[in-house]
Structures are given as structure tokens and as C-alpha cells.
């Protein structure tokens, strides 16, 4: 039998990486997958080495627009690690607040896109509609919808004024209610369940072998979370649980993210309550960074992000290394995509991370016989068929 190849991409930006996927198929089944990255490479590490520390924070914020707090946060952790800089209590709460708000908006974004890929545009519109209040909260706190520019070495850039907190809590109540509704709707929906259950399974052993992190790992039964394992900022002062599910399929990844949103809301509420009373400065004045090395970790919405900074006593890093979570999560496709039907491939690829450009770019895929087939339509047709089977119409 001749081997057919389905190219997906190259536009597919997840974090700083855009990928080109090549699915090798035999009939309906995916037998192998190959990928190529580098479409989004802009040389952050190199540029960072020519910038001052404060400018580096601005720069790493622009690695990724979806987790535009995780990178700066890991970066300032790394710089603070060189000199063991203490940060004020109030700043710790604000950092955690921003980090968790970002997790909520990122997971909602993913949820919407996942819905879009399987033909649930209602879910897409819903999830993105309820994502707007989160962005509103960001705008109220930092002045910008995305790219908040809140992190500084030794604290944060902007205070959350106490007059704003009742209003923010009000928005949070609203988000909470909507989240419960979406979680319940997604949980009770028989079509969603039968469409996603058992699809693209990443076994626990594979998750360990490929060093998966974040929700991808937690949905495969691996309880790893930097927030618990090495709490920084206010994570050891707030009460929350990490969500771990055993099955490793796309459905579990969805549920993990939904439950994490609810957990994050809990953290946000605690932070806001604390910010009503916790006094103090928000920024310690850091005059210089001594020579040395530092590492910074933070649990981004997609998993652990890692920064390494080496300083030689000047105001710039001599070496700045970044490892983003998707970089380790993407190779898990090798395990999760083999042996599944082509119609499930798109959602399995998307389950690790949002990939909206995939929507546009995966539309026209050509197999070796040069007939056109539409991956998105294929994925949606399967959902439709299941819906008919379940509701009998």
C-alpha cells in the first residue's frame, strides 16, 4: 500500500512556535507524525542578551501573547534568584492574582477553540464571550487587555487600588456563575462526551517518557504543578487543589482545564480579599544585580515555563535561556496521534494547546493522490454523526 501524507500547516502558532505537521496515513488511520518548527523564531534569547534586565522583561512578555505573564514572571523569578531578592507581601498577592487571571483567560480561549474544531461553534462563542470579563479585569488592573507589563524585579509595576476591588469581585462573581454553567453544560453533554472520550490517549508512561507538563500531564495522571511543588509568590498562602485525572484522553484534558478555571477563580478571590487589607509597598528598590546564575520557574497555563539567567554584574544578562511548556508537550503527539482516525487528529493536536491558525491553515489538506480533503469538515462531520446517533434525528 502506498503511503499517503497529509500536510498540516505551516501556520500554526502555539506560543513562539509555529509548526508544520505531516501526518502519514494508511486509509483512515494515522500511522506516523512528523513536525517542523521555527516559523515563529525571532531570536528572543539573543536580543535579550543585548538588553537591560528591565527591558528583557518587556521583551519576554512578547514571546507569547496568550501567556504574557508567565514568561515575565519566570524571568523575574530567575533574576531575583541570583540575589535572593525579597519581594513585598502585597506584590506577591498581585503577582499571583495576575497569573491566575491569565490562566482563566487562556483556558477559556482553548476551550472555545476546541469547540470550534469539533464543530461546536456555540461553545466557541460562549467561552470567548465569558472571556471578555476577564480581559476587562485586566484592563481595570493594568490598563491593557493583553500584555499587562506588571512584572518588575523586586515587585510589580502597578498597585491594585482598594477602591477597585469590590468592582473586580463583582465581575469575578459573574465569571464564577458562568463557569459553573459551562462546566455543567460540557459535563452533561452526551455528544461532547462520546466525541472526545477515548480520543488521542496519552498514557501515563508516555507522558513521563516525553516529559509532558501542565494540563497535558495532569490529564494523564501525573500530579506535577510548580505552584504546589515549588510555591513562589503567594501560592503557599492561598488554598487550592491541583486537578489530576487518570485517562489521558482529550475529554480529560478538557475537564482538567474546566476544573482548573474554577480552582483559579478560588485563588483570585482569596487574593482580592487579601489585597483589601495587606499593606505595604509593591516594589523593592533593586539597585544592582551581582554576578551569578539564577533559575526561575512558573506554572504557565500550559505547563512549566523555565528561565535561566546568568549575570556578570552589569545591567544585562550574559545568557538568557527560555524553555516554554509547549516545546516539551508537542512531541507527545508522537504517542497520542498514532493509530487514531484522521478525523480525530485535529482535536488531538489541539488538545495540548490552542492553535487557531490551524483552523485556517488546516482547511485544505492534500493527500498524495492530490484529492482535497478538509480536515476541519471531517472533524465536524464526525461530531454531527454522533449527535444524530444520540438524539436520533
Amino acid at each position: 500500500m502506498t503511503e499517503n501524507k497529509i500536510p498540516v500547516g505551516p501556520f500554526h502558532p502555539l506560543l513562539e512556535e509555529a509548526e508544520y505537521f505531516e501526518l502519514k496515513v494508511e486509509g483512515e488511520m494515522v500511522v506516523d507524525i512528523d513536525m517542523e518548527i521555527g516559523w515563529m523564531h525571532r531570536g528572543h534569547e539573543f536580543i535579550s542578551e543585548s538588553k537591560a534586565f528591565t527591558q528583557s522583561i518587556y521583551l519576554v512578555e512578547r514571546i507569547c501573547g496568550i501567556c504574557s505573564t508567565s514568561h515575565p514572571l519566570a524571568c523575574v523569578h530567575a533574576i531575583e534568584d541570583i540575589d535572593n531578592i525579597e519581594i513585598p507581601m502585597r506584590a506577591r498577592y498581585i503577582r499571583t492574582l495576575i497569573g491566575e487571571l491569565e490562566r482563566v483567560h487562556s483556558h477559556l480561549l482553548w476551550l472555545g477553540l476546541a469547540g470550534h474544531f469539533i464543530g461546536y461553534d456555540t461553545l466557541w462563542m460562549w467561552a470567548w464571550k465569558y472571556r471578555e470579563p476577564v480581559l476587562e479585569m485586566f484592563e481595570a488592573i493594568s490598563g491593557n487587555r493583553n500584555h499587562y507589563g506588571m512584572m518588575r524585579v523586586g515587585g510589580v509595576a502597578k498597585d491594585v487600588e482598594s477602591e477597585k476591588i469590590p468592582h473586580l469581585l463583582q465581575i469575578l462573581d459573574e465569571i464564577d456563575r458562568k463557569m459553573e454553567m459551562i462546566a455543567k453544560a460540557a459535563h452533561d453533554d452526551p455528544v461532547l462526551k462520546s466525541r472526545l472520550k477515548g480520543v488521542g490517549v496519552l498514557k501515563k508512561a508516555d507522558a513521563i517518557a516525553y516529559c509532558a507538563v501542565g494540563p497535558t500531564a495532569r490529564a494523564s495522571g501525573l500530579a506535577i504543578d510548580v505552584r504546589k511543588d515549588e510555591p513562589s509568590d503567594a501560592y503557599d498562602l492561598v488554598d487550592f487543589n491541583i486537578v489530576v485525572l487518570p485517562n489521558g484522553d482529550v475529554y480529560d484534558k478538557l475537564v482538567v482545564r474546566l476544573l482548573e478555571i474554577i480552582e483559579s477563580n478560588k485563588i483570585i478571590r482569596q487574593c482580592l480579599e487579601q489585597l483589601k487589607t495587606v499593606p505595604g509597598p509593591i516594589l523593592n528598590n533593586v539597585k544592582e544585580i551581582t554576578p551569578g546564575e539564577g533559575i526561575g520557574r512558573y506554572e504557565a497555563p500550559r505547563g512549566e515555563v523555565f528561565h535561566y539567567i546568568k549575570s556578570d554584574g552589569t545591567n544585562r544578562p550574559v545568557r538568557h535561556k527560555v524553555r516554554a511548556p509547549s516545546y516539551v508537550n508537542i512531541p507527545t503527539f508522537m504517542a497520542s496521534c498514532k493509530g487514531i482516525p484522521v478525523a480525530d487528529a485535529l482535536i488531538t493536536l489541539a488538545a495540548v494547546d490552542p492553535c487557531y491558525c490551524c483552523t485556517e491553515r488546516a482547511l485544505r489538506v492534500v493527500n498524495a493522490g492530490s484529492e482535497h480533503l478538509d480536515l476541519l469538515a471531517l472533524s465536524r462531520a464526525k461530531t454531527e454523526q454522533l449527535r444524530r446517533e444520540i438524539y436520533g434525528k
Partner: protein
Amino acid sequence: MGWYKRRLAKSLWVFHVSGSPCNNCDIEILDLLTPKYDVERFGIKLVGSVRHADVLLVTGVFNQKIAPRIKRIYEQAPKPIFVVAIGTCTSGTCCFKDSYNIVPDREAVIPIDVYVPGCPPKPEAMIEAVAKLIGVLNG
């Protein structure tokens, strides 16, 4: 030519190309489609293939690897096509000026008609850009 352009100005279909952005501009573009901004009520629709598009929305600084692809997309598009560059990245390289991997002149890759600066620009600004484009097309 006037009627030809006016014909385009009724409802613009847009295609979105990301040339090494940080994703944020792209999310904000998708945000336009969702209930809060809902640009479909103006007839602006995001389409899945460049062959159906009247407007190209490009984001990002264009690295060396992606620039030929963007050029190819532009060549595949039916003319006339209008290119709207979203974000400071495309207008002025943002903070990536010193990078070894970006193309120095993005206008050399594809001609750009409208620039929307901002990092990322607010969705309102993007709507205004496209609305202005419609205004110009209508003369």
C-alpha cells in the same frame, strides 16, 4: 475601476496571516468575531482560504523562514487585495529590531496598505481600520 472597487466595499472578507507574531494580535483578531465585537454584522467575515479574501490581515515581524510563505500567499490571492498590517510588530518591528532572523523591510515582502499600530491594537482600532478602508474604497 471605480465600480470595481465599490463592489468590494460592501462586505469585506478577510483572511488572516500570521508572520511570526506573538499571537496576541491574532487572538485579538479572532476576538473580533465573538459576541462582544461581532464584526459579522458589518459583513466582515474571516474566511478559510486566501482565494476568497478581499483583505489580508497580517501580523508579526516576518522571520526569514515565513517571509517566502507570506509572499506566496499574497501571490495566490485574487487581486485587488488590500493588506492591513496589525500591530507594532509589522509597523515598526516592536522590540525585535536587533534580531538576526527577521526581514528588515516588510514592505519588500508584500505591499501594505493600512497600518494599525499598537501592541496589541485594541479591537476597536482594528474595526476602525477596516471601516476606514471601506470609506476609502467607496471614494
